[in-house]
């Protein structure tokens, strides 16, 4: 974990150079940029309206008019994948950000104030972590009702305790550092120390964790959509598309293959990026 003051351009340049030397990370980042652009410009790139049904062309094979084929209602799969990228990225980023901000808030308070507040916050986090992957999200969405925002909220609740723990650990180790103690001895107030010295140093582990959890959030959104608990049909989300194509697996496997490839490649790209960031920042985040 980084322990030096963060605002040293020399260090950041070294980090950047280390990142650029890692081909896997650069490939991941490049692919991700492509996905982001595809999502933003989906209305211009999509050859068809993603909701327009062409019933005579149901389950049309890839190639020809429909580059990646058509689904069971004759909707163009490529167009739906492009629009689906919006749901995936939006959910990945929004839910990770909510979890990160809330987690950073609680983790900083717990680590900096300590005492019974620390105990209380961390016990609540323990309880949230005690729910196996996916289950808390399922419980929340099935209670609140399926919608894109409820999905994002549910995923955020699931990521929150991991961020809180990470930040608390970083804050605790920083509190002992000489320069933080020195700032205290020089009369800086704790709020000031927190903002000037502690918070900037949590950026690099947060960035790595943020990338890791964005990948997981995209995957979790697809899983929830697959179970019928995400964005609701006819909205094009990759999980929805796979779920709808299930019944035609034998006759038209391309209906599930194409969105699955988009999903797997996007998650892989984010994972490659996270790995490269971890190496570049030299952050040890075992078991994440």
């Amino acid at each position, binding site marked *: 974990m980084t322990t030096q003051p963060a605002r040293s351009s020399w260090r950041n340049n070294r980090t950047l150079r280390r990142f650029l030397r890692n081909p896997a990370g650069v490939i991941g980042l490049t692919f991700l940029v492509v996905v982001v652009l595809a999502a933003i410009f989906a209305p211009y790139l999509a050859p068809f309206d993603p909701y327009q049904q062409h019933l005579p062309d149901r389950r049309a094979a890839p190639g020809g008019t429909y580059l990646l084929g058509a689904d069971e209602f004759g909707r163009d799969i490529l167009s739906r994948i492009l629009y689906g990228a919006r749901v995936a990225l939006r959910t990945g980023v929004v839910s990770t950000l909510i979890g990160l901000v809330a987690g950073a808030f609680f983790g900083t308070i717990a680590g900096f104030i300590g005492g019974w507040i620390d105990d209380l916050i961390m*016990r*609540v986090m*323990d*309880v*949230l972590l*005690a*729910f*196996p*992957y*996916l*289950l*808390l999200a*399922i*419980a*929340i969405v*099935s*209670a*609140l*009702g399926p919608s894109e925002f409820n999905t994002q909220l549910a995923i955020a609740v699931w990521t929150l305790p991991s961020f809180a723990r990470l930040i608390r650990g970083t804050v605790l180790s920083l509190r002992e550092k000489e320069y933080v103690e020195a700032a205290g001895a020089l009369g800086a107030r704790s709020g000031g120390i927190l903002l000037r010295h502690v918070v900037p140093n949590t950026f690099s582990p947060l960035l790595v964790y943020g990338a890791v959890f964005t*990948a997981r959030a995209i*995957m979790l959104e*697809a*899983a929830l959509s*697959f*179970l*019928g*608990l995400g964005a609701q049909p006819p909205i094009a989300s990759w*999980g929805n598309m*796979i779920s709808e194509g*299930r019944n035609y*697996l*034998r006759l038209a*496997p391309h209906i*599930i*293959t194409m969105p*699955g490839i988009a*999903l*797997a*490649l996007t*998650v*892989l790209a984010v*994972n*490659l990026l996270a*790995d490269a960031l971890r190496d570049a920042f030299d952050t040890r985040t*075992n*078991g994440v």
Partner: protein
Amino acid sequence: MYAYVIRRLLWAIPVLIGITFTIHTVLSLTPGDPVRIMLGETATEAQIEAARAEIGLDRPFLERYGFYLANVVRGDLGESYRNKRAVAEEIRDALPATAQLAVAALVLIVLLGIPSGVMSAVYRGTWLDATLNILSLVGLSMPVFWIGLLLIYFFGFTWPVLPIGGMRDGLASFVLPAFTLALNSYAMISRLTRSEVLETLGEDYIRTARAKGLGFNVVVWRHALKASFIPIITVIGLQFGLLMGGAVLTETVFSWPGIGRLMVDAIMTRDLLVVQGAVLVLAIIFVTVNLAVDLIYAFLDPRIRFA
């Protein structure tokens, strides 16, 4: 040792209470009137009021939580409104199938994940390491439900050699679901094993062992892997909990008659008590497995129990 075990056991109690509280809170967030949903549109106001009083929905939140907790402690998770069976009974019937699937997946994870992690570490920087690394990253990035469907397509339709649904075909019916369920965790264990073994290989005593003439394989498999076992066991323990959760997707894809599919069916019919009951039971299993792992850990590593 005893003090540690007791402390750790006592520790689990507030966590379990916290779990029931979270589930109860989530359940009470349900918009609309659960009784109206349960009784359907034909119910009269009087019937609805009676049902509300019967379930205790007219009481304050904490009082309802008290009731709920007391019932959970007695093993009463309510009644499924789909088929009027006790939720606890439904879960008891479904649990063995899930547990068997999770164990099968766990065996695959250990048998494939640890060796590939060790190989990756030993041949660090070679093409073998790179290939295994990419394989595990790909494994980590594949959506479980999608892989399951592809396997069904290839081994059920294109080249029909394996059963693709249910568990009536004995051991053969485990192959595809267990492989699907294991994939993500395999990748995690392999990556973890690699980094742990790499770290141990740099230690002085490993160099000493090599210097005194012990063969490379003996050093790696007996010394380095042994020293890496504790973190690996912890994560494997955590995986078991994750597997119970991941089973939701795998069971849906393979029509596996376990707790995951029970839960998904319940979601579809908005049978909330079954959903909450299943989540509660799986969370309790997760906590218990973690507890067991911690205790094994303390048993293996005296530094922890005397700390």
